[in-house]
């Protein structure tokens, strides 16, 4: 499929909102070509990826869903799309992707319903015996995990300041807790940074956390200046207990 229009159309310099309105008013070929050139690829990609959640999608299935998505958008002379485009011109692409996601799920749900000949055998909920495992809310692992997250969050809060502190904290957790890539984070609305910007926020926060965990460097230096004991620390502890040795000032 060739996404870009072969030659510039009359609407090449129009906004996406205007192209949508043109398609809704009197869908001439050039308006359609321009529409496809601008949004065809993200729509198909969204469908392909959503379809992949249901298993390996075939080419013909993706083509079917793509066509059904355009039919849905074109219903009633693109009335819903047009109304949306007029009210939220900056969110048109999001609207199209959302429609594509819905159409894909609907397609596969229909395919998998038993009335439509789904092949999966029926399993009654009565036959399923749920098991409580290590992931239950009060498990030891879970509690330890929450404590760890809380500790890291405390370090983060101490390290962050300025107007972007909430955004930076969100970026940190999206990366470290959710495992999102810098590219995925940068693509989220309201983050307002490119991939590199997100990367540098993460590096900066990692550095801050390291400093928080290690404690201020000057304290380590102070400790270094103290006279060393000629006895092994373990022996000193056994003989005199901890106070004689001195405790950490962290």
């Amino acid at each position, binding site marked *: *499929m060739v996404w870009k229009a072969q030659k510039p159309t009359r609407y090449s310099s129009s906004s996406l909102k205007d192209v949508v309105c043109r398609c809704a008013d009197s*869908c001439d*070929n050039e308006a359609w070509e321009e529409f*496809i050139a601008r949004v065809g690829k*993200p729509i198909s*990609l*969204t469908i*392909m*990826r959503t379809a992949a959640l249901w298993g390996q999608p075939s*080419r013909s299935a*993706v*083509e079917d869903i*793509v066509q059904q998505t*355009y039919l849905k*958008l*074109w219903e009633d*002379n693109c009335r*819903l799309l047009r*109304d949306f485009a007029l009210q939220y011109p900056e*969110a048109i*692409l*999001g*609207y199209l992707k*959302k429609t594509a*996601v819905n159409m894909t799920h609907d397609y596969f749900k229909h395919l998998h319903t038993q009335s439509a000949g789904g092949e999966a055998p029926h399993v009654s909920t009565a036959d399923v015996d749920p098991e409580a495992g290590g992931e239950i*809310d009060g498990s030891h692992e879970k509690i330890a*995990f929450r404590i*760890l*997250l809380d500790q*890291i969050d405390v370090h983060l809060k101490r390290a962050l300041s300025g107007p972007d502190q*909430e*955004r930076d*904290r*969100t970026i940190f957790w*999206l990366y*470290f*807790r*959710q495992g*999102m890539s810098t*590219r*995925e984070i940068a*693509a989220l*609305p*309201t983050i307002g940074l490119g991939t590199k910007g997100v990367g540098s926020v993460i590096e900066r926060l*990692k550095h801050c*956390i*390291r400093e928080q*965990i*290690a*404690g201020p460097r000057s304290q*380590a230096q102070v*400790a*270094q200046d*103290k006279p*060393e004991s000629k006895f092994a*620390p*373990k022996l*000193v502890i056994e003989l005199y207990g901890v106070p004689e*040795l001195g405790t950490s000032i*962290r």
Partner: protein
Amino acid sequence: MGSPNLERPFDRHIDHDELDALVPSCSQRGRKHRQLSAEGLRKAMVHLEHCGDCRSRVSQYRQVVERSANLEGSEGVPSADCPTDVDWHEVAFGLWPEFKTQELIAHAARCGHCGPLLRAAASVGEDATPVEEEFLAQLKLPACPVRQPGTKARASASSLLSTWRRLFQWKVFVPVGALLVVVGIWTTIRPSAAGPVTGAELAEFAVSTHTQHVRGRLTLDLQSDSEPRLREWLSAASPFPVVLPARDEGPSERRPYRLEGARLVRLRGKTAAFIAYKMPTGPVSLLVTPDAVAIASGGVEVNFKKVSFHYRRVDGYKVVTWSVHGLTYALVSQEGNETQTSCMVCHSAMKDRDLSHTPTPLSTQSSFGEPIWQ
């Protein structure tokens, strides 16, 4: 256990550089550490053997660097803080208001239940990989969907044309035929192109606007619970005079609704006023537009002396439309058919009768039955 570390005081704990060397991050792996020699690293490791506190700190930092927090996996268990009724695709695609989006993403970032949902939704919108590009390149181009009403218009136009040709052969009917063609084209094209919005279309639009607001996707330009403030705002912002019952609440009076605010919306290129209310039965909204833009019609009709009310259900919402004094109103609520409390947004301000216990003239089934009141 190794031998005690005689060269390093016990209370000299792991410092910043040692931590960096003991747990190199991805970007540092393979790089030589400028400030820490192999001997220094060895000493740090010996210290770790004896110091539980440092071991715990190094382990904590390792979990951060290796991003092992996301491997713990607590998905599927929503907490009390988790938002309900959120479509994470809509959040990831930027379809929610900015403030709400920030709030939701900040929650998801720290939540084991919502985070994976956001991540799954966000991954759909990423750039295509080379393999995906190849797959996309094999897809055939979608065909432009046929515009049904347009096709009908073209068909009727061509049928009129052939009739006109036949009439042309009958020279005596030429003037009459031409006139018929003009009238035909006028009546075929005019209503759909520029006529007022029908009652059904208005009801659909009102429900769509109402649901967008309820889902937080339609912010209000005026956020106030003061009716005088609303009237003041409408008279300044609206290009047409919006007439609302204008009796202010008495000191001992308690109305069954609370005003949320208002905004202007576009209905087929024209302006309409959207007013949002909160009621114990749920959110209620009132859409007001000039009757040149939309006319109340259809549904279950209840006629009074000066006004007719049109009741219908759209997507589970109850919609009442009426046209009066040059304006058309559409009231949307999720109320059942047993009561008409939502109507009190106008009736209580009019100090009119209490409709809270009056049934709606709609059948309990989704299909329309005969109106009870008629």
